[in-house]
């Protein structure tokens, strides 16, 4: 309290909104679980998750995750590797998944490697379907994962 604070003080400054009030919109998401690429976002690069990921925006790059949900308005240009994949949006690229669901609003251009596959009525799939021998996600998503050496070198 009496230690290091700015000379400009930590109370409300005239002409500024207090930081906590400005952060109110973002606080609403604090208790949500899993990652979300929201509709207004466009990511050019790879996403690598060990948890749950939902994409409502655009991703130009490869995605590796435990579970992936591609929202209805979402668009992905790149490969996907995940244990469970639910596609409601548009995907151009190779999908590798344990359980793959292509919903009725989905448009998929690319091959699908799956252990179990569902295509709902209305869902569009242009590509070859191949059954994977493994449900091992480490194997499924190996190509999209950064190499351990590369990760270590990054720090």
């Amino acid at each position, binding site marked *: *309290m009496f*230690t*290091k*604070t*700015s000379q*400009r003080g*930590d109370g409300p*400054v005239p*002409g*500024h*909104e*207090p*930081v*906590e009030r*400005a*952060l109110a*919109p*973002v*606080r*609403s*998401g*604090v208790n*949500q*679980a*899993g*990652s*979300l*690429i*929201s*509709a*207004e*976002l*466009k*990511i*050019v*690069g*790879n*996403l*690598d*998750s*060990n*948890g*749950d*990921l939902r994409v409502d*925006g655009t991703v130009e*790059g490869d995605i590796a*995750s*435990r579970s992936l949900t591609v929202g209805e308005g979402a668009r992905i240009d790149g490969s996907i590797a995940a244990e469970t994949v*639910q596609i*409601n949006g548009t995907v151009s690229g190779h999908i590798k998944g344990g359980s793959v*669901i292509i*919903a009725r609003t989905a448009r998929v251009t690319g091959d699908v490697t799956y252990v179990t596959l569902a295509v709902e009525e209305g869902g569009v799939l242009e590509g070859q379907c191949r059954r994977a021998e493994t449900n091992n996600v480490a194997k499924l998503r190996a190509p999209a994962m*950064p190499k351990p050496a590369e990760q270590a070198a*990054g720090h």
Partner: protein
Amino acid sequence: MLRARKEPLEDRSTVAPAPARVDADLVVHADVVGALALIVDGTVKGAVRADSVLIGPRGRIEGRVDARALRIDGTVLGDVVAETVALGPTARVVGNVTHSAITVAPGAEIDGRRPWRPPGHVARG
């Protein structure tokens, strides 16, 4: 059925969309630019730009951060430019923190300068 559950009845027109989230188990090998609100509990290897940003204690950004309102409880390796900045006790910034108003909790580390700019110095969008 597979859609998100319906929200309880309320006036949605004034409710902001859900903030983008980079969870603890996600590594983004790209810039995260253009979000309205963004929560980073995981790692972003790239620049971040959003209207309001929360960087949680486990959050790590390896790149520049631009925001209007920003709270940092995690690590930023890069310059920070924001209108209002709050650094929590576990914050660590290796870079300059350009601000119009700043709060620094005891324990926060800033390895860089803290230049002040008049309000409005952060370009919107």
